[in-house]
């Protein structure tokens, strides 16, 4: 059962990495980042259930990760909005303000 869940989270992680690299829209890249966070969380919760169910350190860690992911999503979407206001576009390859 543990192998199934680990394989599932590995699949989710690979999908997230693939979308993060290939997506041309910035909001979709943020969504794929959330998918990667969720894959990590699934791993943590599964290990804390199967191997460490007396003191559930993995669940506490995953709650911290969820909170940090929420903060990251607010900041990232605000940055996307600011970029959209300046460039009138959300394509990730047209955002080369810092390149010279």
């Amino acid at each position: 059962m543990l192998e199934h869940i680990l394989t599932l989270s590995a699949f989710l992680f690979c999908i997230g990495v693939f979308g993060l690299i290939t997506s041309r829209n910035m909001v979709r890249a943020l969504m794929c980042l959330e998918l990667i966070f969720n894959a990590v969380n699934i791993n943590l919760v599964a290990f804390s259930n199967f191997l460490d169910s007396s003191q559930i350190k993995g669940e506490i860690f995953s709650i911290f990760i969820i909170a940090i992911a929420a903060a990251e999503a607010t900041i990232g979407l605000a940055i996307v909005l600011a970029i959209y206001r300046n460039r009138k576009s959300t394509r990730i390859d047209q955002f080369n303000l810092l390149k010279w």
Partner: protein
Amino acid sequence: MFLLQKYDYFFVFLLIISFFSILIFSLSKWIAPINKGPEKFTSYESGIEPMGEACIQFQIRYYMFALVFVIFDVETVFLYPWAMSFYNFGISSFIEALIFILILIIGLVYAWRKGALEWS
């Protein structure tokens, strides 16, 4: 390894609720009179024609409210286990949570002063 037995009452509740909602909707579909017409297929039966698409551009005000909501939602999630284990620790845990809330109140005051909570 799986202990879903704790949620017996929850699953019974879920079953009853889903059965009840299906019953109510099928009852209203069964009882209500059906008369077909061209007005029945429009989005609003009040006679106002829908204009444009459904995906319109929102105002940025909605985004500001959602942003403040996310932060204080996370705060609520952290305060709930603190409240559940409050009796085991006493006054020290109260002070710790007070520091936690005070730091976030600074953010609330900032958002208020910047006008993120107003619909202007």
